[in-house]
């Protein structure tokens, strides 16, 4: 799938729309998304009748790879599902096991895990805002090209990203696939002096993320008059959702974050081989920054809340996906500010990790990845080893909602010259920050082999 012609266009493609003509509008390979996916819109008489976010990542069978392993090994393995958000996988998994075994962790470990998550949010959001999404708003093809016209903005984004990576590396050894998360806590807790070195960087990061909010809030933003998606996120009494909270939705769902399976389900769809998530009634929903800010906004760090206030875009973040870039910038402020608070108050825990005993049973747990809610569920056998696993990443939960949004949004832009239509549609897809590597641990490329034209 590498090296398409010019911009990312594939087969089919749009000539002027003729009446009663059925055609496909393909974006061969989506770029500036993590992993490899493509998009096909099926049009009949200029109307979008179907949208397929297809994914041609090769299957990697993670649910099977963890079977038979001991919990701590699983933490190392599931991190490899995604190099951009390994912490999210480790966090959902470690809490799922601790739930299954009834492990209570040290409050300091709890805040260190939030700090770790802050690091990943900063790294992931800074990457997406600066290098992946901003180019769409400013009409360039990449962050590299963006540096040519606004080097300062790119350097600011990279500096933020570096701080996020630095946090993860400090707690876990390296920014990608950190090594210290263990059931019961961490393999080793940092010394006060080790964390203290973060303070200046975090002071700067708060300033930089605030500046970034102003930057992205001013971006020219496409109108979006499609019915807003149903939002789902974690909500916690006191903290902005990361590792804890209940699963709530914009239409009244309110369940424990261990109970995802009671209300949501995954299903496989031919053609677009994505496993998609719906509520049991089959309706799509959306997770991610927009959902978190909308549903748990009151737990935002004061600095972030104030920044959100200043933009006056809280409402648009809920209704216009293109504003998700603002939502990410707001969460950057939150993560930087909270990280600074945690580092400031840090006192090492008595023990880096508490002793625990594996016991047979099932444990599920949802946390908030940068891209949204991520749910893990493990059944552990009497040997203390994984017998069965379910891993539900944000992107597969969002896929149905993304496709619905495309069906609603595409007609408005398909009359534009094709290259521009491409940009707009890709821009919309990117605004959900799809992480196809994540979604893909059980997806395949068969869509690529389908003959063009009607399939049924």
């Amino acid at each position, binding site marked *: 799938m590498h090296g*398409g012609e010019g911009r990312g266009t594939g087969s089919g493609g749009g000539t002027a729309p003729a009446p009663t003509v059925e055609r496909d509008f393909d974006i061969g390979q989506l770029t500036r998304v993590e992993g490899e996916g493509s998009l096909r819109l099926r049009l009949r008489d200029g109307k979008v009748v179907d949208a397929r976010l297809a994914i041609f990542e090769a299957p990697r069978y993670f649910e099977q790879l963890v079977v038979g*392993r001991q919990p701590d090994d699983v933490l190392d393995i599931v991190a490899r599902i*995604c190099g951009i958000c390994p912490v999210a996988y480790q966090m959902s998994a470690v809490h799922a096991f601790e739930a299954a075994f009834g492990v209570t962790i040290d409050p300091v470990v709890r805040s260190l895990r939030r700090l770790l998550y802050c690091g990943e949010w900063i790294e992931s959001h800074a990457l997406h805002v600066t290098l992946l999404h901003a180019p769409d708003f400013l009409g360039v093809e990449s962050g590299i090209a963006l540096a040519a016209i606004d080097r300062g903005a790119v350097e600011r984004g990279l500096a933020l990203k570096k701080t996020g990576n630095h946090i993860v590396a400090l707690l876990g050894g390296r920014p990608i696939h950190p090594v210290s998360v263990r059931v019961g806590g961490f393999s080793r807790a940092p010394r006060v002096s080790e964390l203290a070195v973060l303070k200046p960087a975090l002071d700067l990061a708060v300033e930089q993320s605030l500046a970034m909010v102003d930057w992205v809030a001013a971006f020219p933003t496409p109108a979006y008059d499609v019915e807003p998606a149903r939002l789902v996120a974690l909500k916690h009494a006191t903290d902005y959702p990361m590792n804890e909270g209940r699963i709530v939705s914009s239409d009244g769902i309110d369940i424990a974050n261990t109970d995802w399976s009671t209300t949501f389900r995954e299903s496989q769809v031919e*053609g677009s*081989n994505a*496993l998609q998530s719906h509520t049991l009634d089959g309706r799509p929903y959306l997770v991610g920054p927009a959902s978190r800010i909308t549903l748990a906004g009151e737990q935002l760090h004061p600095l972030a809340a104030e920044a959100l206030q200043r933009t006056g875009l809280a409402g648009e973040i809920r209704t216009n996906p293109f504003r998700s870039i603002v939502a990410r910038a707001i969460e950057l402020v939150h993560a930087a500010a909270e990280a600074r608070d945690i580092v400031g108050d840090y006192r090492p825990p008595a023990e880096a990790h508490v002793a625990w005993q594996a016991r047979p049973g099932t444990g599920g747990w949802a946390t908030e990845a940068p891209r949204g809610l991520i749910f893990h569920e493990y059944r552990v056998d009497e040997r203390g080893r994984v017998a069965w696993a379910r891993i539900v990443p944000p992107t597969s939960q969002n896929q149905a909602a993304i496709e619905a949004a495309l069906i609603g949004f595409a007609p408005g832009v398909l009359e534009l010259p094709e290259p521009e239509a491409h940009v707009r549609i890709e821009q919309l897809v990117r605004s959900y920050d799809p992480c196809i590597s994540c979604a893909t641990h*059980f997806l395949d490329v*068969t869509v690529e082999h389908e003959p063009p034209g009607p399939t049924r």
Partner: protein
Amino acid sequence: MSRPRLGVVKFASCDGCQLTLLDLEDELLAITDRVDVVEFPEATSARSKGPYDLLLVEGSVSTPEQAEEIVELRRRSAKLVTIGACATAGGIQALRNVAHHDSWRAAVYPEPAWIESLSTATPIAEHVTVDAELRGCPIAPGQLVEFLTATLVGRRPQLPDEAVCLECKRAGRVCVVVASGEPCLGPVTRTGCGALCPAFARGCYACFGPRESANVAGLRRGLVADGMTAAEVDERFAGFTAMAPAFAATASKAAAAYREGTVAEPTTDRVEVDDARR
């Protein structure tokens, strides 16, 4: 001299190794000043079919079309360099090579027939000639910079194949095997990560794969002498470079054990096929 044309592509992988390039926050812009990034779907919408002066390849080959595509990419690349454990050793997914692939596929998919994937996930070098390898899960930023620097300067990159232990001792770490009885694969694992696991009070789990003359049998005997069971030791090898030749035999023993211990219940037992969309 004209700017080299750089391509970055991926196969079955987590994106972490190509992300490492974007994680070079301090060097990224300096690098892009010196090379033309002509193909890097994760980072740019500009695309090129090549030719590439340097192509960085992430991921392992695990579908039929990937097997064809890598040959084509090799044809278009002056220098093809594999990055990361997936590309150089098959990655964690290569454990399927010793599992019953069909049963796995059946376990994961309600409609296995829709799925096309090879029964093995194999390193790039098993398909085409590779000019250099950057090891690691993920690769080390320092080694990536060193490789790019050496390539731009024209000297031989310094990518040592010695044991993790040397860097561990240079860094003044206390050996976790000797002082805490932690199983550590450092003595048989190639350096590059900066010996970070011992720094976090745990044993090395071989992200960088085997070092030169890795004495796996010797380490195995040693760890068993320290009180681990042979099965526990083998399991240490069933990780991200499990199918690297020096580790494969040992790792396969563990993989086999997992198979036998597996509770026969497919992941998709609660995944219905959605007829609504058919």
